[in-house]
């Protein structure tokens, strides 16, 4: 009995190890390439780490080619504004849908859930036209407002708030707390994990998005990081592989750092999203 378990344990580790290695290889390759000069990429043997590591030079080249900090800051602003806004408004709406009865409640909830099914590609053109009419092309407003509230955020929070026991709320009310106090001082603290999950999900979504910034921004100073990197890949004048990989490293460094420390929360956010469906 134990023998069999031992074997299967080794086999499992082997499989998982191989899978992990396969996943990690491209990332290692990225780091390795960032250490080379652009000639070394083609001339040297693949795995050779260059005697003189060019990482510093490549990173300097990135900053010469693109306004990296500007792009980074833009992405940061957009992702943060959207995340905070979504948390706030989804909390309000989720609370209202979970704990209050009012005419049209089911209709509204079904409607919001239904919008989860609308693919972005269908609304991108009309949204672009709306944003253009509002004069929000090439502005932070244009980048953030159309995504400020998400239907899955409301859905997740409504489900979460439903499980808050009514007696806690009732007793708070008896003590004289008004609705917003109940929400922010009682319900929200009880649901911090799910709020963190939603925040992470939203932030990652906004950080990563390309199509909308592509369509809505024009000037260099409003570009997000995703867009800036996409343009950099296509640049026929300047970018070469080590520089591109250095840029990639810079771009993922903050995310990877966060991930290394908060891995549990990242994973839980995806898992809990899946389970609430």
């Amino acid at each position, binding site marked *: 009995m134990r023998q069999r378990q031992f074997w299967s344990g080794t086999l499992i580790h082997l499989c998982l190890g191989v899978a992990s290695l396969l996943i990690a290889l491209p990332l290692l390759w990225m780091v390795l390439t960032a250490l080379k000069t652009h000639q070394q990429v083609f001339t040297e043997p693949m795995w050779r780490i260059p005697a003189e590591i060019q990482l510093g030079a490549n990173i300097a080249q990135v900053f010469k080619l693109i306004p990296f900090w500007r792009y980074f800051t833009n992405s940061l602003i957009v992702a943060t504004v959207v995340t905070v806004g979504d948390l706030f408004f989804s909390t309000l709406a989720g609370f209202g849908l979970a704990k209050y009865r009012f005419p049209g409640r089911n209709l509204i909830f079904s409607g919001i859930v239904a919008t989860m099914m609308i693919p972005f590609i269908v609304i991108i053109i009309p949204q672009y036209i709306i944003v253009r009419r509002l004069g929000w092309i090439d502005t932070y407003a244009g980048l953030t407002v159309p995504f400020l509230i998400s239907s899955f955020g409301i859905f997740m929070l409504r489900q979460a708030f439903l499980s808050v026991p009514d007696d806690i709320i009732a007793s708070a009310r008896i003590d004289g707390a008004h609705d917003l106090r109940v929400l922010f001082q009682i319900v929200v603290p009880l649901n911090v994990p799910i709020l963190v999950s939603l925040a992470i999900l939203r932030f990652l979504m906004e950080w990563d998005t390309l199509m909308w910034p592509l369509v809505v921004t024009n000037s*260099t100073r409003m570009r997000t990081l995703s867009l800036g990197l996409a343009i950099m890949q*296509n640049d026929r*004048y300047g970018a070469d592989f080590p520089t591109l990989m250095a840029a990639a490293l810079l771009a993922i460094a903050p995310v990877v750092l966060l991930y290394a420390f908060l891995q549990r929360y990242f994973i839980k956010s995806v898992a809990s999203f899946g389970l609430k469906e």
Partner: protein
Amino acid sequence: MSRISRRTFLKGAAAAGGAAAFGSVFTSAGSSQSKTIVYWGHNYPSRVKIVNEIMAPGFKKEAGIEVQHADFDTSQMEPKILTAWAGGGEGPDLVSVGDYNLANYVYRKMVVPVDPVAMGFKDLDTLIAAYEPHALDGLMVDGKLYAIPMDSGSISMVYRKDFFKEAGLDPENPPKTWEAVVEAGLKLTKKDASGKVIRAGLGWEARTPSSHFYYWGTLLPQKGVDFLSPDGKKNGFNNSNGMAAFQYLYDAFNTWRIAALGLGPTISPVDDFGAGRVAMMNTGFWLPPSMEAKYPAVSFAKGVYGVMRLPQFTNGKVATRLNPWVWMVSARSRVQKEAWQFVGYMTKEPKNQTIWAVQAQYLQPWKGMTNRPEITAIPYAKTFLEDLAIGVPTPRTVKYAELATNVAKAYDRISANGEKPEAVVPDLARQVDRLLSE
């Protein structure tokens, strides 16, 4: 009583109002301030440098007007200009784009005619006379001039003399005809053990949709036809001459295999030539300095590479393609006069013309330019200048973007997919006819 207090509600309303103000505070500056010129151009580093470091500051000092300059990758810039200008949206005041956009912009009433007085000339005739004869012909629509050339844009050929020597060819006697190119290409092309091409004898470097017109697309006028018929209403290549041009393209990739794709990670003329992945390459005047800056060992002065006129067909029409960059001003701009004033500032002074020529290799076709010592002193300028005389403009149509996309697809089918011209050309002809008739 548990009500949402009035205070809270008012706070919420204030927040909402703040959000609306948020939007307007962050609108792009060009729309609200007066006397600022928003200028968009492509991301060629030398051009960007000249504008940012010389032209814009100098203009601000002289005229007190600020120029807000943004640069883009070409393939992304032109769609953006289109969507920004069309239908009443805000957009740049001044753009530098490929001249092939002229027809489309004029049709959509998105640009205004050149203002010679703002540029510093007495009138239009004086302005035209200041340029080489016929230099501005391609920029006129219905007798009105709509664009000012930023360069001349002739296409010539660069070739690696060191590879020629290596292959036993005479580096001072490069092939002058496409037929001779095949011979040379066969000797210059290098393959690896598995038979894949690692150095192509010939490189066309077509990357952006529009580049197809002026790189390999030059084969068509050299056979006496073009993508569009002379009246612009139908395709012009579904005939024996057009087929012959496409046949050469096909053979280069598939029969003789002197041209190849996937040599490098992306198609980059500078890298493909400098890193030696291509032995002969069609290109514009901008390539040599950009390439030498990145690959100093590949030097014209040291004879590592040379420049020659674009090869011609033995019994064809002597021609090359012109794809100049031009300046145009938006019809919706509130600073049209100032924008043309800036264009005049950038180009009218011989001093500035030299800056463009020497630092960005943009030879503007001013009269007598080719005789100026500082111009002819540029070592490889001679060939590019001579080719101006045989230049043919790129096809003029409103449906430029769609035409380019379909042409690019035909190119992909022939080069990447190995499909024969007999299959591809009729399809392309059909697509072109259809999009012209819509």
